[in-house]
């Protein structure tokens, strides 16, 4: 319908109305640009907050022992609670819907990398953890660039093996080096590396650890049956909060703890923690879409307006063209293509610039090593951006369609008479 000639016709008229074209184009450009930047900023905030999380799945529940604060059954306050492996066994047997259950034991004080790990002439700090089976099933987001997870045989035979975090491995081994099979010395004990893991939780700080089978840990460090933390994942047909309560009550009964004692055993579930934040983000997301679509609407109204004015302005010209033999199809087609071309080019420019700005911000944040707790990796869903662009182009075209159809239908005499 529109060949090279048609295109030339369109370029002529665009050149003829530079300011008008520019203003329309700017409206579209700005609408798309703002939408992209808003969506990007929203994702950036979300990424920032999510990177602060442990990365544990939503169906995980946690139990950490503390000291009693309420006297109960003749026992006084201040009693240190010790959770044990038999607690884990009981939970698994008596509570329905437990998918995986595992435990952590940490050497030294909580959340501190208090041990020294040595490989040949290099050494660094590391947090040493003993873990029971199923631990890596509870943390499915953990990746293994080299080697493997611990397995039940490691536990059964109390093998002196370890799975080492990437942050520790980076300090001990050259880049791209596969350390599987190497021996490292941890506080005077020799361990064989069977795998290297990457845990993105807490911005990667969870990768400053080493894990070994609980049985080996207990033998080496003499921790007996006690565990520092019990973690479980429940099947999807149960509510995490209810299961947390059920397990907590079971543990309270087993350890003679008052039901209202909040300090004896600390418990939490991931769903509840992330749920609140997610709700906030859903709100922010909706707000961003509202503002973005508003901006987009402004662009659409702009395009529609300009199309109506364009057609009105050119009615006389349309009359002359009709007198010379222009068909309605050629007139409507020319006007449509003009509208679509302007919105498409302007919108695409806005899209590209928006993505470029987001990329630049992300690049600068990385290059300058800036890390904000609430902003990270701004990015935009390209499909969403393209949909917005197509919507804008489509509505622009429809907006131009009505006046151009009208103009194409009136008699040439009337059209030429219009001023």
């Amino acid at each position, binding site marked *: 319908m529109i060949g*090279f*000639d048609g295109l030339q*016709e369109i370029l*002529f*008229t665009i*050149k*003829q109305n530079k300011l008008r074209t520019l203003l329309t184009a700017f409206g579209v450009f700005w609408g798309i640009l703002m939408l992209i930047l808003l969506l990007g900023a929203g994702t950036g905030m979300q990424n920032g907050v999510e990177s602060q999380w442990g990365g544990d799945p939503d169906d995980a529940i946690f139990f950490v022992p503390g000291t009693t604060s309420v006297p109960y059954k003749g026992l006084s306050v201040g009693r240190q609670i010790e959770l044990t492996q038999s607690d884990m066994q009981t939970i698994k047997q008596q509570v329905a819907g437990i998918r995986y259950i595992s435990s952590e034991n940490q050497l030294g004080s909580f959340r501190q990398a208090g041990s020294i790990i040595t490989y040949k002439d290099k050494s660094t700090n590391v947090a040493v953890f003993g873990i029971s089976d199923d631990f890596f099933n509870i943390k499915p987001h953990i990746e293994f660039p080299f080697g493997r997870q611990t397995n039940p045989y490691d536990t059964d035979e109390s093998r002196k093996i370890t799975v080492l975090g990437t942050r520790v491995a980076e300090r001990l081994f050259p880049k791209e080096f596969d350390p599987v099979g190497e021996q490292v010395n941890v506080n005077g004990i020799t361990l064989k590396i069977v795998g290297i893991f990457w845990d993105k939780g807490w911005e990667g700080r969870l990768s400053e650890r080493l894990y070994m089978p609980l049985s080996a840990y207990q033998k080496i460090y003499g921790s007996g049956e006690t565990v520092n933390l019990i973690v479980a994942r429940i099947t999807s047909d149960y509510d995490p909060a209810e299961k947390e309560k059920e397990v907590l009550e079971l543990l309270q009964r087993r350890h003679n703890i008052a039901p209202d004692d909040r300090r004896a055993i600390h418990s939490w579930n991931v769903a509840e923690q992330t749920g609140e934040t997610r709700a906030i983000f859903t709100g922010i997301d909706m707000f961003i879409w509202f503002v973005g679509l508003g901006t987009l609407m402004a662009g659409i109204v702009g395009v529609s307006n300009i199309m109506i004015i364009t057609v009105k302005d050119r009615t006389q*010209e349309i009359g*002359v*063209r*009709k*007198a*010379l*033999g*222009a*068909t*309605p*199809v*050629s007139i409507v087609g020319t006007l449509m293509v003009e509208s679509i071309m302007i919105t498409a080019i302007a919108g695409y420019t806005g899209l590209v610039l928006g993505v470029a700005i987001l990329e630049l911000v992300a690049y600068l944040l990385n290059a300058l090593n800036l890390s904000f707790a609430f902003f990270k990796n701004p990015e935009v869903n390209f499909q969403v951006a393209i949909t917005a662009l197509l919507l804008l182009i489509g509505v622009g075209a429809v907006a131009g369609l009505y006046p151009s159809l009208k103009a*194409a*239908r009136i*008699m*040439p*005499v*009337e059209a*030429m008479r219009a001023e």
Partner: protein
Amino acid sequence: MIELKAIHKSYSTGQQQVHVLKGVDMFVAEGELVSIMGSSGSGKSTLLNIIGILDHYDSGHYRLAGTPINGLTERKAAYLRNRMIGFIFQAFNLLPFKNAMENVALPLYYMKVGRKERNRRAMEYLEMLNLTDRWNHMPNELSGGQKQRVAIARALVTQPKVILADEPTGALDSVTSQEIVEVLKNIHDLGNTIIVVTHEHEIAEQTQRQIILHDGLISSNEVDADILPIRA
């Protein structure tokens, strides 16, 4: 070539109905040079617009080169305007952002002639009207007479059956007017059928036949003595 029978046309301006043409009968043979005269408001331009399919008529019959012009689709109307009719306007109606050659070539664009061929034919007609050296001038760089000659070239370029000129000298001085009339006469000599609407006697007198329109009806249909016999 052109047959009109009992053509009626009225316009509604707000509340009022203005009956412009009240039953016009008219016949123009092939190769004729005819003028339509009349005072302003007599309906002569309306008549020409109906002949040129630029306007509808309310009742009556109109046949152009044997084709009944009635209830045409826009497509068909566009086709007939393009192939059968060359229109010359009082206000020239050149597109201001196209140079002389592009203006002349425009009807050929709607005829789907290729660009090169279009420009070649446009140049041919510009040459015929002594405008070869002005081909790349924009309309605002041309004098009134030159503009009207460009418009005439544009009307001729599709080799239509009929040339219709609505007050072609209305916007020009007397010397230039005579120049344009000479051009129209030359075109007529090449065998074209031409209808000129004018209110100037000097111009009408140079045509073969003068049709005088008075108050929406043809009052006089004076045939020049040396004209070819008209077939009824």
